[in-house]
């Protein structure tokens, strides 16, 4: 996979905003002094009159977005996941979630792949926080194609949406003519009968690689990409649980409250064993993103090893 095209989903976010604006004239893009990093700078360059920099004041930015939405606009409030979901949690809950306003939160630099900035900026709790808010849609795209489709889908949907993007360039895996994005619908990337690997965001491509290598060893693993963590595709996951009997989840997030827990909730009436790969109740570290991903086990070799261990092979 050495020559595979790689794009960071934060770049996809900035590009998608530019692509979508002509179709959504009520759009406005907000940032909190991070336009160069969140890539809303791309939008700012194209449509400066619709880019509002709120300065280093994320709590206020979420309130500004709420007021704009109440006045009929479609704001994208952008910052790092740590500050959009973390610092401004209560503003998102009370000013956006409770009134169910049409605010889109574009959270970049999610998870440990932030890299060198370290633990203070590596948000591994945002999915847990955001999906606890009633009525909040939570989307965690796996690549460029999905991220751009997610931005458009969020614009077409009326209500609050949390979009999670990454800093690190990730392989483009959904570049297929029949690719279709639907909020709340998981995607079976590979069929299989022995076990199901459910992944979301950055490690989806690693899960696919793992499954391909496992196939060579006679293990038939199903791979499901859950881009929408809330509302989760309960039907698809329950079916996979019933048909394969075991699930491994892979997420660039704490195993507390993230994808793994959402999968457990989805199958709670007919449970099967669920093994969670993710950040195991600890803070991150400084270091190159690729090394950190290895360290936290979000790679094909670790997914492979986990599957084999679960299957006793």
């Amino acid at each position: 996979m050495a020559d595979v095209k790689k794009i960071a989903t934060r770049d996809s976010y900035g590009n998608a905003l530019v692509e979508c604006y002509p179709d959504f004239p009520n759009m406005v893009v907000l940032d909190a002094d991070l336009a160069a990093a969140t890539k809303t700078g791309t939008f700012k360059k194209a449509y400066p009159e619709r880019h509002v920099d709120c300065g280093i004041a994320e709590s206020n930015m979420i309130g500004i977005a709420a007021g704009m939405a109440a006045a009929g606009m479609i704001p994208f409030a952008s910052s790092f996941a740590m500050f959009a979901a973390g610092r401004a949690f209560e503003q998102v809950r009370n000013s956006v979630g409770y009134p169910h306003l049409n605010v889109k939160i574009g959270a970049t630099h999610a998870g440990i792949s932030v890299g060198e900035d370290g633990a203070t900026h590596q948000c591994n709790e945002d999915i847990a926080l955001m999906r606890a808010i009633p009525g909040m849609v939570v989307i965690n795209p796996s690549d460029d194609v999905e991220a751009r489709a997610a931005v458009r889908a969020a614009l077409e949907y009326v209500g609050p949406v949390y979009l999670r993007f990454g800093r690190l360039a990730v392989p483009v895996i959904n570049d297929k003519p029949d690719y279709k994005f639907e909020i709340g619908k998981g995607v079976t990337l590979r069929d299989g009968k022995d076990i199901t690997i459910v992944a979301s965001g950055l490690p989806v491509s690693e899960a696919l690689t793992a499954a391909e290598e496992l196939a060579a060893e006679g293990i038939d693993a199903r791979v499901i990409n859950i881009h929408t963590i809330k509302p989760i595709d309960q039907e698809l996951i329950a079916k996979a649980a019933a048909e394969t009997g075991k699930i491994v989840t892979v997420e660039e997030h704490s195993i507390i409250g993230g994808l793994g827990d959402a999968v457990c909730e989805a199958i709670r009436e007919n449970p099967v064993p669920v093994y969670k790969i993710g950040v195991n109740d600890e803070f991150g570290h400084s270091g190159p993103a690729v090394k950190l991903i290895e360290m936290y086990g979000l790679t094909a070799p670790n997914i492979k090893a986990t599957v084999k261990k679960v299957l006793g092979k």
Partner: protein
Amino acid sequence: MDVKQLKITACNVRKGIIEGVHSAKAGHPGGSLSAADIFTYLYFQEMNIDPANPKMEDRDRFVLSKGHTAPGLYSALANRGYFPVEELKTLRQIGSRLQGHPDMKGTPGVDMSSGSLGQGISAACGMAKAAKLMNKDYRVYTLMGDGEIEEGQVWEAAMFAAHNKLDNLVVIVDNNNLQIDGAISDVMSPYPIDEKFQAFGFEVVHCDAHDFDSIAAAFNYARTVKGKPTAIVAKSVKGKGVSFMENQVGWHGKAPNDAEYEQAMSELNAQLAELEG
């Protein structure tokens, strides 16, 4: 509406506050009463609104940043005709449209959900900025508590308002000088309030929150201000209009019992009779 009629209306708004809070056996009468004349002026004189069409696109907007004084907002809305005055008695009850703090999804005339202090002003700034972006000429008003401005987010929003030259925004500070734990000057003084807003780039004007000529002068002045937002520091008396509640911090968030209710209503009815006489 002339001053006499505004005074009569404000008295009815105060009666609605007492009705609601007494019926709920909970709520915040003190700050609702201190702002009763401001609520009245906004909904009966100042704002371009239509109770028959609460979502009118180009209406002026009001955000109750000090959301706990919802009884005052609800009473003004009911008296203005958004919903029956009788409904004020359902305040804080299960199934009521009148939640403990304003809920824009359920209550006609409520432009923004609020209640967590410091957040309403940001939403008001968002609405005012949206008007600028969409070339609309509506105005946005937000009412804040003087204790509320201890929240840091208020000053983030103030910076935003001035930076974006939101001259369609009026921030009213209900300066009754009391918060739950005591006098604001003792708990965590936000004084000098006027100089702080000035330093943040606001035009600042003072008014007597219980004198309609003074209130009118402040709001009329705000309409002449261009290129920056206006803050009105409205000097008020917490619990205004009910003798035993006036300037008593204990009435911040407490409902009157039956005897206290009777006394409050008889005082307000006497004021009403005098005004109407």
